[in-house]
């Protein structure tokens, strides 16, 4: 090789990688590592739960450290291989990604705990915990990556892991649900890939910060509106927005309840995150043009979602539609695009991740104690298990947006933001959805918890010990009540996240620091 003097700083990052930089990849690296470890001890099923929970707790610690660092110093960047961005793949942790990753890992850890009871030896041997770890690697990667094709790869990682979790057990319902889920989601991610192809063809780069700083220059020549709408559709499918959310009610009620809990809490929020990142940060002008369309999509999703919940007899199917309704409310903030609206969306995302996972786990406990998932057969739970009645009440309040639980403040924020943006009809839709949610879950409460068990209905396990279920629910209800009673720190984080989206200069500046000598 000829000895030429090459200025490496033209191609690579010169500063050494600090420990703090490794924190940025830990949320992806640690789960993958633990997935590998779990695969190696595939047959020692007794060890699985401990290893997995350890791995998730380590990931949680890394997420916490990362979040604190981001809140103190702004967006943190690490580019793989130390290649200069935008040439290498950058991981960028800003307030939005880091906070969502933290909450998602928290619920995953609680689910891993509950799974100790819910998943038997067969399930573990055939990969339940490795799937969960891989899922969290994909989710973490999605929240933290700064490269749009890399985002596709992590989407596929968590998609295939979700396939694995869905089919584990191979019952007829699972296979049926998984078929619909898999095919529709495959269409969704392929649409995402198609949109990325178009984006690459237009911009020539895949780095999100690079796209954000080039977008104004490209607007004259590139078909950015079509691109934005295509991304809206692709991520809307992932987030289960109307009218492309068929996959969710077709499948979420089929797998083991702990899988449903993890899905209901985490997966759709990744789609919402992607919408925020792409439409608010990368294509802001296009988002403004689309705000009317997004508002209608939001209203349709939230109202049709909760109507779907009112129509169901199976508690899991009720919850699936409640997830959809929540996504609609989050999209309302996206439609508004103001700092207050986006703060409401992010805060609602925190609440929804916690509350929806907890609700599915509650359904699992109800099945264990009450013998069924159907409203036609459940009953008498309060009399026998008052603690469960208390958890059910808290979660009902949370999801209906009532005090003292977590759903209250995001709802207020979004209603206020709608009124201030001159969209009173959207505020009305949000409030009406809240009322209908109260009705839907109030009916579940009075039928399943208060009413005596109907004649002839199956009874729960006679010596049921719901201790693990109660512990899992308690671990989630604590942050839920905290969010309701003292939401200030969470609102601050959400505000930082929202501001960072609307003014991406900090994000871009972290990826492309302005060199002194240009």
């Amino acid at each position, binding site marked *: *090789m*000829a000895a*030429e003097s090459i200025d490496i700083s033209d191609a690579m990052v010169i500063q050494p990688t600090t420990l703090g930089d490794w924190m940025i990849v830990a949320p992806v690296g640690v789960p993958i590592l633990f997935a590998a470890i779990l695969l190696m001890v595939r047959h020692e099923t007794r060890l699985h739960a401990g290893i997995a929970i350890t791995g998730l707790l380590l990931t949680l610690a890394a997420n916490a450290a990362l979040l604190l660092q981001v809140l103190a110093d702004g967006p943190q960047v690490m580019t793989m291989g130390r290649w200069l961005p935008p040439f290498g793949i950058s991981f960028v942790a800003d307030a939005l990604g880091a906070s969502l990753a933290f909450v998602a890992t928290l619920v995953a850890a609680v689910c891993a705990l509950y799974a100790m009871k819910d998943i038997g030896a067969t399930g573990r041997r055939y990969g339940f915990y490795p799937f969960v770890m891989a899922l969290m690697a994909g989710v973490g990667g999605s929240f933290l990556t700064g490269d749009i*094709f890399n985002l596709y*790869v992590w989407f*596929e990682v968590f*998609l*295939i892991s979700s*396939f694995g979790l869905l*089919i584990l057990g*191979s*019952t*007829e*319902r699972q*296979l*049926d*649900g*998984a*078929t*619909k889920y*898999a*095919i529709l989601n*495959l*269409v969704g991610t*392929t649409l995402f*890939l*198609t949109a*990325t*192809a*178009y984006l*690459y*063809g237009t911009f020539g780069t895949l780095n999100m910060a690079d796209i954000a700083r080039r977008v104004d220059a490209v607007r004259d020549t590139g078909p950015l509106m079509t691109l934005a709408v295509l991304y809206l559709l692709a991520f809307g499918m992932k987030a289960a927005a109307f009218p492309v959310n068929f996959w969710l*009610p*077709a*499948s979420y*009620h*089929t797998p083991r309840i702990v899988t449903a809990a993890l899905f209901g809490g985490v997966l759709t929020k990744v789609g919402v995150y992607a919408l925020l990142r792409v439409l608010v940060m990368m294509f802001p002008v296009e988002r403004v043009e689309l705000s009317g369309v997004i508002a209608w999509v939001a209203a349709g999703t939230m109202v049709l979602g909760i109507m779907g919940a*009112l*129509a*169901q*007899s199976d508690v899991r199917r009720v919850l699936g539609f409640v997830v959809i309704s929540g996504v609609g409310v989050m999209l309302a903030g996206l439609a508004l695009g103001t700092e207050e609206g986006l703060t409401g969306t992010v805060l609602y995302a925190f609440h929804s991740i916690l509350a929806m996972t907890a609700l599915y786990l509650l359904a699992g406990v109800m099945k264990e104690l009450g013998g069924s998932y159907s*409203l*036609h057969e459940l009953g008498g739970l309060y009399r026998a298990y008052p603690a469960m009645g208390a958890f059910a009440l808290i979660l009902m309040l949370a999801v209906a947006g009532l005090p003292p639980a977590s759903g209250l403040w995001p709802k207020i924020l979004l209603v206020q933001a709608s009124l201030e943006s001159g969209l009173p009809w959207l505020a009305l839709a949000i409030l009406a959805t809240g009322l209908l949610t109260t009705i839907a879950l109030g*009916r579940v409460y*009075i*039928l399943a918890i208060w*009413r005596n068990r109907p004649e002839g209905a199956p009874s729960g396990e006679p010596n049921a010990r719901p201790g693990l279920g109660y512990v899992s629910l308690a671990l989630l209800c604590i942050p839920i009540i905290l969010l309701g009673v003292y939401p200030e720190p969470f609102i601050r984080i959400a505000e930082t996240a929202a501001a960072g989206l609307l003014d991406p200069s900090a994000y871009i500046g972290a990826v492309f620091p302005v060199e002194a000598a240009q």
Partner: protein
Amino acid sequence: MEAALAFVVSVFFAVAIYLMLSKHIIRILLGVSIFGNAVNLSIFTAGRLMREVPPIIPEALQTPDSAIANPLPQALVLTAIVISFSLFAFLLVLAFRAYQELGTDDTDGMRVAEPEGEPLPPLGY
């Protein structure tokens, strides 16, 4: 040249989508496979096309001395091919198992998760 490819891509998409609108799972899977090819062609074309010269640096040089094909979309397509094949393989086995358990490959007959004739929820209190 991109125009010709764009035309071919549109036919690929059309055929793939037509197949995916079928009621039979196997046809849907054929459609999925073609859909994947369509997207790969899209990525490849989006990176702009260049005849025949692969992006390989000749032995003696540090950088290529002539115009080469765009290497980046090729890498992206390679990743996409592998990922979509993994998904395709899974879907195929899923279809097979669904046929085994549910007895049909017609999606209209796969009504276990969302059965027909579901009753109303309890209307009382």
